[in-house]
């Protein structure tokens, strides 16, 4: 902590390094590209990538959301009038849109904590496993790399009315069944996504666990801490940066939920109970030819996700952030 502060102070005191005199004007190339032009050059491809693949579509989405926009053939003369915030007003007063945000909220409340807890626990366990380590790691990772279309088929088989789960549950099986039950459809999807993505998040935690010094566990043990105490006092704080990353990534991917409502519940069913904002964007923007309205939903979603990510970073990141 103190060395970091010292470093910052040093940087402020002598920003141009030993060669930089306070009264001398730096050369033009340095003014444009900074002290290390090679660094700017090396980072340029990624900056370009970010600009083209992330920033440009986002700015264009904002532009679309402010117009009565629709996709047209090149050269076609079409009218796309500026409509101000009409699309936003329509989106924020549309019960279907609000329902979709509520649905995805339910999804995130289940999915994100479950993902964090399961992945950190399983990663810790996998980190200590001696036998079958590779097999177990691959087993958790397989669902993540398997196409959703394929695993959705398995889950449909398991969670259908006459499927495996209901057969096991017998008389206590829910009626209507999981995926056509308005109350259970979204939690079932949240469970599915948690299971499917767990392998990736376990991998992040496994990487983070390698950076937790063994000495800390030894010290904890010397102080009389058992495995549970060590987990909460050493492992959890030790992988905090990974936890923030998992929280943010799980929130972002969860907020972009599309494939599962599209395939698992047959188009956001039952009765819109599993419609997500992104699925609604697909319906409105691509199927119904209203990309301006869809873009407004998308921009609202981006803002909501950014706020959540900010809060996660603020509260889960701790002082190190």
């Amino acid at each position: 902590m103190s060395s970091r502060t010292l470093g910052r102070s040093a940087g402020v005191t002598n920003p141009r390094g030993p060669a930089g005199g306070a009264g001398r004007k730096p050369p033009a190339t340095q003014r444009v590209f900074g002290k290390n032009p090679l660094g700017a050059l090396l980072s340029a491809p990624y900056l370009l990538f970010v600009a083209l693949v992330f920033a440009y579509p986002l700015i264009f989405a904002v532009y679309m959301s402010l117009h009565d926009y629709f996709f047209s053939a090149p050269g076609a003369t079409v009218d796309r009038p500026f409509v101000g915030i009409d699309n936003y007003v329509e989106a924020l007063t549309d019960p279907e849109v609000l329902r979709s945000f509520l649905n995805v909220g339910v999804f995130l409340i289940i999915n994100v904590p479950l993902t964090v807890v399961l992945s950190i626990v399983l990663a810790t366990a996998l980190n200590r496993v001696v036998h079958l380590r590779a097999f177990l790691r691959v087993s958790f990772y397989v669902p993540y790399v398997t196409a959703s279309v394929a695993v959705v088929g398995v889950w449909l088989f398991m969670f259908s009315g006459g499927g495996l789960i209901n057969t096991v549950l017998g008389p206590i099986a829910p009626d209507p069944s999981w995926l056509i039950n308005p109350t259970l459809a979204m939690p079932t999807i949240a469970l599915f996504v948690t299971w499917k993505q767990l392998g990736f998040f376990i991998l992040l935690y496994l990487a983070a666990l390698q950076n937790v010094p063994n000495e800390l566990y030894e010290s904890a043990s010397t102080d009389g801490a058992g495995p549970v105490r060590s987990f909460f006092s050493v492992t959890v704080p030790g992988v905090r940066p990974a936890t923030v990353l998992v929280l943010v990534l799980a929130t972002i991917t969860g907020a972009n939920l599309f494939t599962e409502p599209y395939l698992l519940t047959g188009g956001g069913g039952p009765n819109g109970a599993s419609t997500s904002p992104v699925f609604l964007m697909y319906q409105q923007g691509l199927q119904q030819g209203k990309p301006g309205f869809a873009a407004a939903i998308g921009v609202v979603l981006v803002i909501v996700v950014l706020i959540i990510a900010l809060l996660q970073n603020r509260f889960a990141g701790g002082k190190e952030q």
Partner: protein
Amino acid sequence: MQRRTRIAATATAAVALLALTACSGGGGGGGGASDAVSARGDITIWYSNNEQEVAWGKAMVEAWNAENPDEQVTGQEIPAGKSSEEVIGAAITAGTAPCLVFNTAPSAVGQFQKQGGLVDLASFEDGASYIEERSGESAAQYEAPDGGYFQMPWKSNPVMIFYNKDMFATAGLDPENPELSTYDDFLATSRTLVESGAAPFAINPAPTSEFFQTQFDFLPLFAAETGGMGLVEDGKATFAGDEGIAVAEFWKTLYDEGLSGREQYQGDAFADGEAAMAIVGPWAVSVYQDAVNWGAVPVPTSDGTAPEDTYTFSDAKNVGLYSACENQATAWDVLKFATSEEQDGQLLELTGQMPLRANLPDTYPDYFEANPAYTQFGDQAARTVEVPAGSNTVEMLQDLRDAYTRAVISGEGDLEEALTAAAEKVDALAEEG
């Protein structure tokens, strides 16, 4: 810090420039469009990717190319995507649409037209007359609301009730003359099928929320009940009236009594023996012929309608001539060639789908004599109803579907109120045009 600011400022400026460049794109005149109408040369066409239509498409292209060495056609299957409509829509936006697509859904035509992606076939000298002469009275359903033809009515798959004769026999029902013409008969037959254990479900249309599913449960029966009325007539939704409510009540009874499944079946319920009946068109004949001992009857109505008077949904697929085409004169000639009496006969022979041609049974008497299973579909093809025209078709169908899944399939809320609310939304969309 300063360097960061500079880089950020540079990146922001670049992005803003890109955005502005993009924002200014897409406008302008359609220079060269008039030249394209009279231009001739090689063209590309897309056709559907099912085995039978691929065989027809290849044969048609081969026949054209043999006679027209200077105007060669390249045929290919429509690229894979979530749906053909989305692939075509993306191709229109990118300017990469082919000249002709032999798989253009009528529900998507309004949007394609709004995108500036389609050529008005009536702009060709013999365009309107050719379409009207070939398709007869049916052609009117494919005319754009503001005039012109942005699609060539090509083929239909008039939807009927397929039933499994073996299951009917197992249930003690007459497999040759099943009682399925009135709602009461249909429900009684359905109850017998399920209660006897002959089939888990009587009929099992997809209970999912996609807009197009409306075309395979509510719409065919609504067309039959109303004697050929569309979902929207004269700019007003028609489905919230007595006939629409009767149709919805009929389906609701099937779901409420467990005669139809509320859960999506993975696979083909009819072929797998999960349901004793299905509501499909003649494309299914070749699919079911070896799997099911089937029969077919017209869709039911509340009081029972004679087969020769029963209407249904067309499930048509048409042909669009796309504005990205550089040799539109050739494309129009290919389109006429592909929809000629000879090629329509080939289509019928290879696919069993009904060309949207007036007097179909009289035009191909030999085919229907040799293939009696298709005769009733050939007859039914003369009485079909299409989805509403215009750029809001999909949204209209989605609004109806949302009300239907809630009030009919799930049985939530008041059915009449749900249909009325959907009709009000559709009215507003119809007013937009």
